[in-house]
C-alpha cells in the first residue's frame, strides 16, 4: 500500500500527564486548607454549611457521572440519597431508640446492632460503606431494567423510582417511623470526612471518564446506534455509571444523616432533586468540576438570600421553605440558565485544565476544505482478484 | 419572479449552502440537479422560510422573503412538495389536501381545485377518506404534489418528487409535472434523477457541495460531457 513510513508522531498527552497531576495536587491542597480552616475556625453553623457543600457536591458529581456522561437523565438520584441515609442511620442509631416499641419492623439483629462502643469515625465509615453498598445494590436492581430506556422515558421512570422510595419511607412506619423520620443519629460527620469522600467521588468520576468505560459512556450518549454498532454494550455501560453513582450518592446520604442527626422523608423528594439537578446543569452536564462548583453555589445562594426572606427557612436545602422567595429566585435563575446558557458554566470542560496547557479539542477544523488525499488511493482500474474465481 | 443572490445557509457551524445565486422567471420550469448532500433541499427550504440564510437575499416578485415567516411565504403564492413527501399520515387524504389550502383567500373555489387535482391523480379521489399513512409511496407523492397545488401557487417548489419511486411511477410524476407547466405554473424542481429532470426543464442549475457549479438551458446541459459523466451515469 501507499502508506508512508510511520511519521514520528507528535508528543501526546498521557492519561495522567505531569501537569494534570500537579493541578490535581494543587486543588487537593487548597481543598485541604479550606477543610482545615472550616474545621478549626468556623463556628458551628458555617462549619455545617461547609459540610453540606461537600455532601451535595458528592451527589452532584455522581449525578454528573450518570446523566452527564451517559446522557441517561436520572431524576431518581435522591432516592439513593434517602436509601444511604436511612440504611446508615438504622445501623448507627443507639439500640435504645431502635427498640421494638419504636421501630417494630426492624429485624432483631439490626435492632440490637450496636456501634455506640466503636470509635465514632469507624462507625461512620462502616455506615457510609454499607449505606453506599445498599444503594448500589438497589441501583443495580432498578437500573438493570431501566437503563434500556432513553430520553424522557428514563427521566420519567427514575422519577417513578423516587416516588416509590418516598412512598415507602412515608408509609413503612415500622422501620422508617413514616413522616416523623428517624432521629438521634450520632452526628459524627465532620469537615474532613466530608472532604475526603468528595475527593474520592471526584477521583472516581475522573478516572472513569478517562478510561475505556468513560469513552463508552460518552460514545453511547453521542450516538446510541453507532456505539452499539462498534461493540459498546450500552446497557452494561450505563448500568456501571448508574451503580457507581448510586454508591456515591448512598455514601452522601449516610454523611447527611450523620451530619443532621435526624432525617425525614420530606428531605428526600422533588425539592432536593430539583436543587441537585440545578447544581449539575449550572456547572455544565459532563463537567465534574462544574458539578462541584454548581453544588457550592446552590448550597450557599439560599443562605445569602436568607436575609431577604425574613424569618428564614429551616435549612438551605428545604424546598418548601416558609416564604418561598429564595426558591422563586432559584427557579427563575435556573430557567434563565436554560434559556441563555444551556451548556452551563463549564459545558464539558474541567476547571483550570486549560491554564495548565492541556489542549482542548478543536471544535472547528481550521484549514477549510482540504481535498481528499489522492495519494492514498491506488489506481482505480487496478483489478481486484475475485475470491470466487 | 424568484431571485436568489449570494445566499449562504449554515447548520450550526456547517455551511450547507455556500453563496448561491439563481433566478426563476415567470412560467419557467427550472431544475436544480446534484447529488445527495449538495444543498438542494436546504436551498428549497430556505426559500420557503424554514431556514434563514446567513447572508444574501431572496426576492419573490421584488419582495424580500428573507425575513418572512414560512406561513406568509405560502400566502404570497409559493408552495412546496417537500422531500420525503411528509404526508400527514394520521389525517385523511381530504384533510391533507385541505391543509394545503390553509392560506387561500378565495375559499369558494376550493371544490373546483379538488376536482382538478382528482383529474390529475384519480387515485386520490378514490381514497379521499383514507388516512394518508395507508397510501403507497407513489400515491403519497401524488398527494404531496396535490397538497402543494391546493395553495394555488404561482411558484411551485418540488423537492425530489421521484425519490424512491418505481420507474413507471417516476414517468407518471414527470408527465404530470410537464402538464402542470403547460397550465402556466412556474416550477422549481429539485432532483437527483438528473436525466428525467433535464428532459422536462427549460433551464437547469447543477449544485455540488453547496455551490452552483454549472448552469444553462436544460438541453445543452443534458449533452454536456461532464454532466453526463457525473450525473447521468454515462
Amino acid at each position, binding site marked *: 500500500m501507499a502508506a508512508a513510513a510511520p511519521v514520528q508522531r507528535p508528543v501526546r498527552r498521557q492519561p495522567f500527564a505531569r501537569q494534570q497531576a500537579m493541578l490535581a495536587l494543587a486543588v487537593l491542597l487548597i481543598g485541604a486548607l479550606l477543610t482545615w480552616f472550616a474545621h478549626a475556625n468556623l463556628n458551628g453553623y458555617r462549619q455545617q454549611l461547609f459540610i453540606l457543600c461537600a455532601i451535595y457536591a458528592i451527589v452532584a458529581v455522581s449525578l454528573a457521572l450518570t446523566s452527564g456522561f451517559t446522557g441517561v437523565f436520572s431524576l431518581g438520584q435522591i432516592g439513593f440519597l434517602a436509601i444511604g441515609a436511612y440504611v446508615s442511620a438504622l445501623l448507627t442509631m443507639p439500640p435504645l431508640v431502635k427498640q421494638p416499641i419504636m421501630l417494630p419492623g426492624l429485624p432483631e439483629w439490626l435492632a440490637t446492632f450496636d456501634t455506640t462502643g466503636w470509635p465514632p469515625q469507624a462507625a461512620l465509615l462502616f455506615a457510609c460503606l454499607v449505606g453506599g453498598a445498599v444503594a448500589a445494590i438497589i441501583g443495580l436492581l432498578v437500573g438493570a431494567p431501566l437503563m434500556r430506556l432513553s430520553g424522557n422515558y428514563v*427521566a420519567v421512570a427514575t422519577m*417513578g423510582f423516587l416516588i*416509590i422510595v418516598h412512598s415507602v419511607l412515608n408509609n413503612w412506619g415500622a422501620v422508617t417511623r413514616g413522616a416523623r423520620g428517624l432521629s438521634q443519629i450520632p452526628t459524627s460527620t465532620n469537615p474532613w470526612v466530608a472532604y475526603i469522600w468528595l475527593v474520592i467521588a471526584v477521583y472516581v468520576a475522573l478516572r472513569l471518564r478517562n478510561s475505556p468505560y468513560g469513552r463508552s459512556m460518552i460514545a453511547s450518549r453521542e450516538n446510541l446506534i453507532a456505539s452499539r454498532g462498534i461493540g459498546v454494550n450500552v446497557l452494561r455501560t450505563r448500568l456501571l455509571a448508574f451503580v457507581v453513582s448510586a454508591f456515591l450518592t448512598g455514601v452522601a446520604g449516610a454523611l447527611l444523616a450523620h451530619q443532621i442527626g435526624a432525617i425525614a422523608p420530606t428531605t428526600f423528594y422533588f425539592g432536593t432533586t430539583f436543587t441537585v439537578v440545578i447544581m449539575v446543569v449550572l456547572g455544565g452536564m459532563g463537567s465534574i468540576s462544574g458539578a462541584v462548583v454548581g453544588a457550592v453555589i446552590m448550597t450557599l445562594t439560599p443562605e445569602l438570600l436568607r436575609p431577604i426572606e425574613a424569618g428564614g427557612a429551616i435549612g438551605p436545602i428545604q*424546598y418548601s421553605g416558609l416564604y*418561598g422567595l429564595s426558591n422563586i429566585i432559584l427557579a427563575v435563575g435556573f430557567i434563565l440558565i436554560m434559556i441563555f446558557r444551556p451548556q452551563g458554566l463549564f459545558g464539558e470542560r474541567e476547571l483550570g485544565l486549560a491554564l495548565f496547557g492541556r489542549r482542548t479539542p478543536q471544535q472547528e477544523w481550521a484549514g477549510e476544505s482540504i481535498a481528499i488525499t489522492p495519494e492514498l488511493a491506488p489506481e482505480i482500474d487496478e483489478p481486484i482478484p475475485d475470491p470466487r474465481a | 419572479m424568484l431571485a436568489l443572490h449570494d445566499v449562504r445557509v449554515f447548520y450550526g457551524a456547517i455551511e450547507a449552502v455556500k453563496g448561491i445565486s439563481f433566478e426563476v422567471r415567470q412560467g419557467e420550469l427550472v431544475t436544480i440537479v446534484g447529488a445527495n448532500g449538495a444543498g438542494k433541499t436546504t436551498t428549497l427550504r430556505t426559500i420557503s422560510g424554514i431556514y434563514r440564510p446567513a447572508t444574501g437575499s431572496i426576492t419573490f416578485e421584488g419582495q424580500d422573503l428573507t425575513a418572512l415567516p414560512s406561513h406568509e411565504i405560502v400566502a404570497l403564492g409559493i*408552495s412546496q412538495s*417537500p422531500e420525503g413527501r*411528509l404526508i400527514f399520515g394520521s389525517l385523511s387524504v381530504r384533510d391533507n389536501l385541505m391543509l394545503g389550502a*390553509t392560506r387561500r383567500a378565495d375559499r369558494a373555489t376550493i371544490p373546483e381545485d379538488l376536482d382538478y387535482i382528482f383529474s390529475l391523480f384519480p387515485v386520490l379521489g378514490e381514497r379521499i377518506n383514507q388516512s394518508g399513512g395507508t397510501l403507497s409511496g407513489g400515491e403519497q407523492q401524488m398527494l404531496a404534489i396535490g397538497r402543494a397545488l391546493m*395553495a394555488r401557487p404561482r411558484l411551485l417548489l418540488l423537492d425530489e418528487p421521484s425519490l424512491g419511486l418505481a420507474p413507471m411511477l417516476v414517468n407518471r410524476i414527470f408527465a404530470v409535472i410537464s402538464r402542470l407547466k403547460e397550465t402556466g405554473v412556474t416550477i422549481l424542481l429539485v432532483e437527483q434523477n438528473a436525466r428525467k429532470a433535464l428532459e422536462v426543464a427549460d433551464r437547469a442549475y447543477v449544485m455540488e457541495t453547496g455551490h452552483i457549479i454549472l448552469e444553462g438551458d436544460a438541453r445543452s446541459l443534458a449533452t454536456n460531457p461532464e454532466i453526463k459523466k457525473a450525473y447521468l451515469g454515462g
Partner: protein
Amino acid sequence: MSAAEFGQQFINALSLGSIYALVAIGLAMVFSILRLINFAHGETLMIGAVAGVVLADRGLPWLIWLPLAVLITVGAGWLMERVAYRPMRGAPDVTLLLTSLGVSIALQNGALLTLGSQPRPFPTPAVLGGQIPLAGGVQISRVNLVTIAIAIVLMIALTWFVTRTQTGIAMRATAENAMAARLMGINTNTVIIAAFLIGAALAGVAGFLWGSRVGRVEYDMGFIPVLKAFVATVIGGFGSIPGAVLGAYILGFGEIFLVALLPDYLTSYRDAFIFVALILILLIRPQGILGSTEPEKI
C-alpha cells in the same frame, strides 16, 4: 364487594378519571407538538383554584367567578408559553422537562408567597353539595355527577375541534410534522399557543372540580393531579389525546379499585403501586396503549 358498593366505586372512579382526563389532555396536546412534558401544567390547575378562592372572597357569585377563574388560567397558560417555553423551542427533551420543573417550582412558591402555607377552604357552590340517590341504594354526589358531565361535554367539544375545525386539523398536522405544517402555510406559533390555551382552560375547569372535590386549595395542590395526569398520558401513549383520556380513566379506575380491594395496611402505598405499574408500562410498551410503534430510523 356488593353490587351497591361496586356501583358507588364505579362512579367515584369515573369522576376521578374525568378530572385526570381534563388535566391529561393539556399535557398530551402540548407534548405532541413540542415534546415538552409540562410539569407546570399542575400549577395552571392550582392557579384556577386559587383564582376561584380569591374572586369568591370578593363576594362574586360562582357563575361569575368560575368563568373569570378559567380566563385567568388561560392567561397564565399564555404567559407560560410566551415567557418560559418559547425561548426553549427546539431544545433537547430533557432540557424542556427541566425548564417546566423550574416553572412549576417558581409558580408554586409564588403561590406560597401570596397565599401562605395554610390550606384555604374552597368556595364550592351550594348546588354542588349533597348527594343524589340512585337505584339500589347507590348514591352519587353532585360534585361527581357534574364532574363526569362537564368532562364528557368538554371532551366531545374537543373532539369536534380537532377533527372538524381548521385550527384543530392544523394542530394535528403540526404535531405530526411541524416542518411540513409550516410548508402548508400553517402558523405553528398560533397552533402552539392554541394548544397551551386550550390545555390551560381545561386545567382551569379541572382546578374548579378538584377544589370542589377536596374542599380546599393549597399552593402545592397541582402536584398530585399533574403527576397522575402524566401517568395517564404514559399509559395511553405520550402525546395522543385519545390515549391520554383512556389512560386517565384506566388510572382512575385502577386507583379507586386498588384502594377498595387492597388490604388496609397496603392502601397507603397506592402511589407506589401506581408508579410500579408506570415503570412496567415504560419497559414493556413505552409507546403506551395507543401510541404508534414506528421503529427508530437507522
